Each structure stands twice: as C-alpha cells, then as structure tokens.
C-alpha cells in the first residue's frame, strides 16, 4: 500500500514537471513558426516569474500555513541585489551566461538572508497580524530602495539618501542606483528558456521539500502547532526554514524580473503590496497547498487580462467579477452544492453509458 502511494505521488510530481516542459516545447514551436504575437512574446518571461512567485508563496501560505502579504518585498531584494551585481560586473565578466548564473545566486541569497532576518521577529505573530506585518515589511523595503543612491568610483562604493551629487563621486565614477529612478542599463539576460529552467528548479526544490521529513514537520506545525511541538518538532526552526526558502525563491523571480527590463524601479505597481496580493490570488485560486494548481493559476490569470484585451476598459472589471464568482462558487455552501450536482450529473451519464 505504501509503495503504491509513493509511486502515485512521484507520478503526480512528474506530471507537474511534464506540463511545464510540454508547455515550453509547444510555445517554442509556435515561436519558431512565428505564430506568437510580439505582445505575447514579451509576456513569456514575466509569466515564468509569476509561476515561480506563485509556487514559492504557496510554500508559505499553503504548506506552512502563514499568510504573507510581503512577497513582493523579497522579490524586490532579489531584483535590486542582482541588478547591482550585473551592472558592476558587466565589464569584468562579459560572458552573459556565467554572469547571470552568479546574479541568480546572489539575488536568491540576498532574498534568503532577508527572509531569515524578517522571519525571526515576524513568525512570532499569528494570522492577520502576521499578514499585516509582512505587508509592512514589503512596503518598507520598497520605500527604502526608492531613496537610496549608490555610486561607484575608483575608491569603492558610496551610499547616500539625498541625491546623486552628494555621493561625491570622482570623475569617471558611475551612479548605480538613482533613488526613485532606480537602476538603468541592467543587461537583458533573462530568456524564456532560463525562466523555464528556473521554474523547474523551483518546482524541484518545493516539491522535494514538501515530500521530505522537513516538509512533513512543516505541515504538522500548520495542522496543529501544539501537537507538533509536543512530539519534539522545533516550531521556530521549521517555520523559519519554510519562510526563508519561500523568500529565496521570490528573490530568484526578482532576478528574472530585473534582467528582463532595461530600467528597474521600485514602484507600487511592481514591488508594492498589490503585487503580493496578485500572487496570493494565484495561490488561492490554484488551490492552497497545491503546487500544480499554482503553476496553472499563475499562467491562466496572467494571460486572462491579456486575452480580454479586446474588451479594453472592461477587462479588469471582468477579472474582478471572475475572481469573486470563483471564490463564491468554490468556497460557499451553495457553490459546493452546485459542484456536487454537476459531478452527480456526469456520474449518471457515465453509468448510463456503461
């Protein structure tokens, strides 16, 4: 019985990987055939980014059971730390592949560091308090990034919070972060292929974490904290682990984002709480704790507003209505009843056919 369960699990995981790879191959074929509009082509890397974000947030919300509204903050950390690295190394390391690989590692590592630093105090709180504090941290990160000026010359790095002149750079020094104007001229290293590889790595990390001893400990804490503690599971350790892995993966998504744009700025739109909420919507609609669901929901819900583009001004309105209706349909007693009826209807049909 046990082995059969295990193989079922492995099968299910391979289906998830398979879906991603198949989607990549199909899109690549369409790209080669020139059947993809430039609008959709520009959406491919952000799509990968959203998938990574959704999967990583699902680790916090679904597996660890903590509502975090500050995911965009970690993405911001990953984006800016890696963009600074890439800009500094552009002349030293001209090989894009190695440079981007290192940038990904650095962005991920910095986001993980912030995950640990923020996680230690924050994870002491519960429920909505935790949600509002993570939101606060995300906003703080975004705001602080907006006032930082960072320059570099032969004497090293200079930081200021006023303007680029007060950096006091020597001749030939360059300003890397220009406060609200952000970082310009980041090399555009992100490609769809790298995005898909990063998705696969993210899935590999998260799925293996969930199905490991550690993952079971994390889920035990989610289901019953006191019971888990009483059998000797260290609550703080495992919660922090899940939170910082989730943060690190968000940082990876941030690296992808930063290297897809020539100008990186911290706006409310990309790194504000609205972004965190958008990702949370993916996670909840995909099914809390369901990794494959997150992947599919992220893709569908990113494409949906684009597919509704012909409806112009009405598209976000329709998006909102779809959101509300889906939630009521899936979560209310009335909606469940309708679901049951539909299932029953199909069952009857099947038995009739048989």
């Amino acid at each position, binding site marked *: 019985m046990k082995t059969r369960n295990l193989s079922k699990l492995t099968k299910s995981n391979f289906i998830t990987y398979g879906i991603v790879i198949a989607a990549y191959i199909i899109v690549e074929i369409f790209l080669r055939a020139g059947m993809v509009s430039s609008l959709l082509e520009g959406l491919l890397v952000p799509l990968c980014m959203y998938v990574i974000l959704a999967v990583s947030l699902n680790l916090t919300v679904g597996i660890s059971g903590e509502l975090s509204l500050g995911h965009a903050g970690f993405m911001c950390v990953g984006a800016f730390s890696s963009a600074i690295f890439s800009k500094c190394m552009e002349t030293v390391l001209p090989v894009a592949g190695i440079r981007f690989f290192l940038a990904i590692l650095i962005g991920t590592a910095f986001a993980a560091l912030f995950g640990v630093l923020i996680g230690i105090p924050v994870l002491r709180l519960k429920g909505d308090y935790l949600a509002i504090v993570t939101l606060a941290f995300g906003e703080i990160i975004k705001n602080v990034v907006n006032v930082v000026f960072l320059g570099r010359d032969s004497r090293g790095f200079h930081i200021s919070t006023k303007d680029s002149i007060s950096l006091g750079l020597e001749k030939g020094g360059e300003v890397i972060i220009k406060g609200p104007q952000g970082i310009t001229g980041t090399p555009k290293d992100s490609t769809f292929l790298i995005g898909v590889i990063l998705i696969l790595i993210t899935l590999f990390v998260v799925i293996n974490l969930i199905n490991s001893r550690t993952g079971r400990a994390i889920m035990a804490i989610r289901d019953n904290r006191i019971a888990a503690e009483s059998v000797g599971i260290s609550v703080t350790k495992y919660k922090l682990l899940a939170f910082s892995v989730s943060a690190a993966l968000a940082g990876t998504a941030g690296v992808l984002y930063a290297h897809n744009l020539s100008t990186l700025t911290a706006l409310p739109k990309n790194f504000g709480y609205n972004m965190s909420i958008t990702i949370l919507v993916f996670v909840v609609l995909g099914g809390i704790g369901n990794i494959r669901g997150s992947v599919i929901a992220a893709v569908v819900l990113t494409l949906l507003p684009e597919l509704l583009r012909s409806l112009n001004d009405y598209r976000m*309105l329709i998006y909102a209505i779809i959101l509300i209706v889906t939630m009521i349909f899936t979560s209310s007693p009335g909606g469940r009843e309708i679901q049951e009826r539909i299932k029953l209807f199909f069952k009857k049909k099947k038995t009739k056919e048989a």
Partner: protein
Amino acid sequence: MIGFISYLVNGISLGSVYAIIALGYTMVYGIAKMLNFAHGDVIMIGAFVVFSTVSGAGLPPVVGVLISVVACTLLGMAIERIAYKPLRKASKLAVLITAIGVSYFLQNVALLIYGANTKSFTSVVSIEPITLADGAMVISGETIVTVIACIIIMIGLMTFMKYSKAGRAMLAVSEDSGAAQLMGVNVNSTIAMTFAIGSALAAIAGVLLCSSYPSLTPYTGSMPGIKAFVAAVFGGIGSIPGAFIGGILLGVIEILGKAYISSQLADAIVFAVLIIVLLVKPTGLLGKQIQEKV
C-alpha cells in the same frame, strides 16, 4: 516651535481621517473576522459621489455628503450581502481573496465612470481658517471639521455600543456569534448593520480626506485603507478607542516623519513603528481590553 505645532496639528487632522476609517475597519474586523480590503475603495466611492453631486450637479455640500453617506451605506450592505455572506463559513483566505476581488471591482467601476485622470476635489468645508500667533500658524477649516467629526463619531459609536440594543448585539456577535444566535440575536442583520455603519464612516472619511488632500483618482482609497488598517492593528484591533488612538498616532507620526526625516520614507516610518509595536505588544496598544471588542 510654531512649525512643530503646526505639523502636529496637521498630523492630528490626517490622523483623525485615519481614525474614522479605522473605526469602520475595526468594527467590521471584530464582527466578521476578515480583512476587508475593499474598505479603502468604499472611501474612494464616497468621495466620488460627493464630487459628482457637488462639483458636477451643483448641489449644496451638505446634501452631497448626505447622498454619499446613504450611497456608501447601501453599497456596504450590498457588498456584504452579495460577496461576503455566502462565504461566512468559508476559510479566511477565501474571504480575503473575495474582498480583494471586490476592491478591484470598485476601482474599475470608478475607472470606467470617471477615467484615470486625477480629479481635483473641491473642499466641502466653508469655515474660515483660524490664524494664530500673528499669522505664523494657520489652522484650516478642514482640520477643525475633521477633528471635531472624528471626536463626535468616536463618542457616538462608543455610546451606541454601550447603551443601544443593536450595539450590544454587535458586541455579542463579535464575542461569540454562535452563543449570540442562541440568545436570540439576529446574527445576519447584525453583521449587515456593522457593514452599513462601517461604510457610512468610510464615506465621511472619504469626503474629509479629499477636502484636505484634493486629488481624487480610482486608487485614492487603497493606501489610506491600508494605513487605517495599520492604525486599527496598532491600537489593538476590535477596540474602538484603540482605533481612535492608533489613527491619531499614525497621522502624527506620518506628518512628523515627512517634515523632519524624509518625505519619501514617511510610509516606511509608519510601518516600522507598527512592526515595533506589534513585536513588543502583539495585540496592539489597547488589545488587552477584550470587553471592548466590537
């Protein structure tokens, strides 16, 4: 010194607006145990109704504000009935996502009707400003009206909660809705009324906010909404005096931070203070007084 006092007055004025929003937030949270992300957008709708009736149709400001309050009350009840009531027994996250959906919905309805351009809101207050210290300090009419409105609302709400039957029903439902139902309290209508009061307060807050800061867009409400929630948490969510104190403190911190530290970091300072308060006192400043939970 005069400068500091006038910043302080501005802070109290902004804080009063936050407090009014936070009062609505805290009541809804206390009774429905949900983060009502759409609350901030009700503020925006309230301001737009006044914009249409007063600047557009040329009605007197008092009538415009009354229409706005009525409209938002109905809107709040409609939102509760359509979007939240079916999910009363659903998971918290499902309700949260629905609230986000409602928030998007309201923003985009406003966007369709009024467009994305910033509207300049004409103040509804026609009281002359008070000049103190030989003109070194001016207290605007908006400030006076906002602060007075906030105090009246707070006292009114506390009296309502303590002495009216409906108010005590709200307390009972927030304490334990199952037990309240067994005691003959109509839980559904009590929750509907809480949303009605919260939304009416949001309308007033919207008008006062836009009278002091006269730029109005479909996204005007979301940040004050979040800040008001921060204020409610700050003071101890569920507590009416807590929301009041939290709101005022938040407004003062924000304005003083803007004036003396950095205008861009003002929000960061507000959030940092929230984090520190929650880490020291995880239930907020007045969070202990569970009896006052609404």
